[in-house]
């Protein structure tokens, strides 16, 4: 392991030689990847590159076939989903997954609850009201806090789920295509939100929308066929011939 860089930027996440195969098909193929603490990283790549699968591994949904995943020095491949969540990884899914029959307030309370075992949840006293109010403010849902979340617009659902992830107060936020289906205005506001969250969180954003990537990106990683294609600033990556090739080749919008 690399040590003793004088300006100690600790790595919060280290992935080595990660392979995930589904019936022989390698969705991830020998991926090496790491994140510094406090970093905001954008991962792009054509459809099917393995971006979502990467998040599945990081949240315990999928067990890797091979490889090693360390988060804050702990091996994630041995932990269950809820243990990983409690350890400090929060995820926003590609298609919003909120609790449709609960209202935004209840959705947030559920995520905010600091003690997630059965009996503390049942008998514990907690006052989360102020925190919920503040979060509702952040995600612009104050006026819709008491309608079933299933009735929110697509963009609002995306926001609510981002709010739920923030509520978990994770050290690492994983955001999978969180501006999909948002209006331009909503997208821009989301960008601002992510920028402000980046001040005290490590964030991994998976994105398709290049305008959005330009807005938030500091460092971009390109995945292709389950492996790392290249890494660098937005401009570097955009002009990299391999990236252009991959994106044109797959006929997909970046």
């Amino acid at each position: 392991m690399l040590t003793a860089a004088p300006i100690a930027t600790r790595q919060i996440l280290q992935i080595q030689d990660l392979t995930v195969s589904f019936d022989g098909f390698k969705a991830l193929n020998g991926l090496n990847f790491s994140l510094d603490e406090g970093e905001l990283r954008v991962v792009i790549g054509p459809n099917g590159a393995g971006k979502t699968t990467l998040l599945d591994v990081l949240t315990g949904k999928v067990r890797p076939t091979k490889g090693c995943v360390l988060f804050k020095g702990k091996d994630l491949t041995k932990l269950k989903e809820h243990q990983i969540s409690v350890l400090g990884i929060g995820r926003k899914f590609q298609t919003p997954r909120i609790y449709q029959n609960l209202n935004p307030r209840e959705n947030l309370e559920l995520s905010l609850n600091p003690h997630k075992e059965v009996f503390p949840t049942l008998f514990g006293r907690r006052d989360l009201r102020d925190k919920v109010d503040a979060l509702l403010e952040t995600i612009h849902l104050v006026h819709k806090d008491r309608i079933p979340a299933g009735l929110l617009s697509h963009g609002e659902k995306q926001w609510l789920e981002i709010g739920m992830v923030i509520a978990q107060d994770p050290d690492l936020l994983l955001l999978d295509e969180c501006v999909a289906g948002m209006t331009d205005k909503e997208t821009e506001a989301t960008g601002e939100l992510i920028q402000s969250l980046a001040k005290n969180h490590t964030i991994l954003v998976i994105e398709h929308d290049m305008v959005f990537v330009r807005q938030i990106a500091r460092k971009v990683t390109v995945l292709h066929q389950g492996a790392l294609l290249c890494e660098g600033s937005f401009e570097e990556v955009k002009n990299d011939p391999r990236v252009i090739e991959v994106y044109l080749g797959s006929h997909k919008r970046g």
Partner: protein
Amino acid sequence: MKVLHSPHTPDGITTPAQGLDLSPRNKLLLEAGVLMGVLLLLIFVFPAVLSGFRLNLLGRFLALSIVALGIDLIWGYTGMLSLGQGVFFALGGYALGMHLSLQLPDGRIPEFFSLYGVTELPWFWRPFYSFSFTAIAIFLIPALVASALGYLVVRNRIRGVYFSILTQATTIIFFNFFNGQQRLINGTNGLTSFTTLFDLNINSAEMRFAIYVATILFVALAYVLCRYLTSGLFGRILVAIRDDEPRVRFSGYDPTGFKVLVFAVAAGLAGIAGALFTLQTGIISPNAMSVPFSIEMVIWVAVGGRSSLIGAVIGAVLVNFAKSLLSESFPEIWLFFQGGLFLLVVMVLPDGLVGWVRTQGRQLWIIFQLWRRRLAKTSLA
């Protein structure tokens, strides 16, 4: 899984569309008031107006509504459709049934044992001489069985249809086992001919009334317990598990404990219901563990409305009254009627009677408001 259940919020949560803008505290007070009113009605008014026969039926059906409350807790709120509640119901029934059968002078054992040449009470029945032990066993044994079964099933992430099938298979196993045990529990015939409890004749009018009142109190207790579990954060998590269990894991919760706990509670309630039912019908047999009976229980809840706890109680009482009325006059059509009822509910009233009343009520309320506003406008003009 992404289906939005219509107004499927747990009881007592204000939604603005409801119009009645009471604070949560006042809503709770209102609910407590209504509950008290219903209790008083059941205890003081019904006995005066119903015949002894109907009152006895009402008592039985109220006992059944306790199982229904448990089913609503695990199915309506948590999404676990158990087709095996009859097992827990029967376990409670057998526990009390044996205690009643053991109301004998020293040294004598229930008569049926002698039919099979058993001369000494099997050891595991001995503690059932004690009422305190029996009272605890009635809910604890079903709850423990459910915990063990639930833990094995839930931990292995078996849910949905597979959970239902497994609970049904359990029912079949228990049914066959109990039917085959003549020497221990009188097999197919079950336990019957009870006469005394606390040295009192259980068939006297006073005792019957006391049992009726006790049943009502247990329904109230069961309601309050389920209400407590389904409101607040714990209840929200149950709903979240029902709607998207994998997501709950990513929110940091392990659903296993939550599901096992409510499954055990529902089983405990089923046990209590079984005991109270046995007390009022005078018999407990393996029939209580038959597959159709467990399915019927689910139908009660579906008819009443799994969107609410009240719905479970109403469904159990109404469906059973319909059953007794219909089968008094036309015994052969009841089964068709029941099947039709279930189809009707599934297709026309997916949220049951209470769900229907709620949505209709809300619409009527809105119409009423509009009408009032218009009236105010015209009177101003």
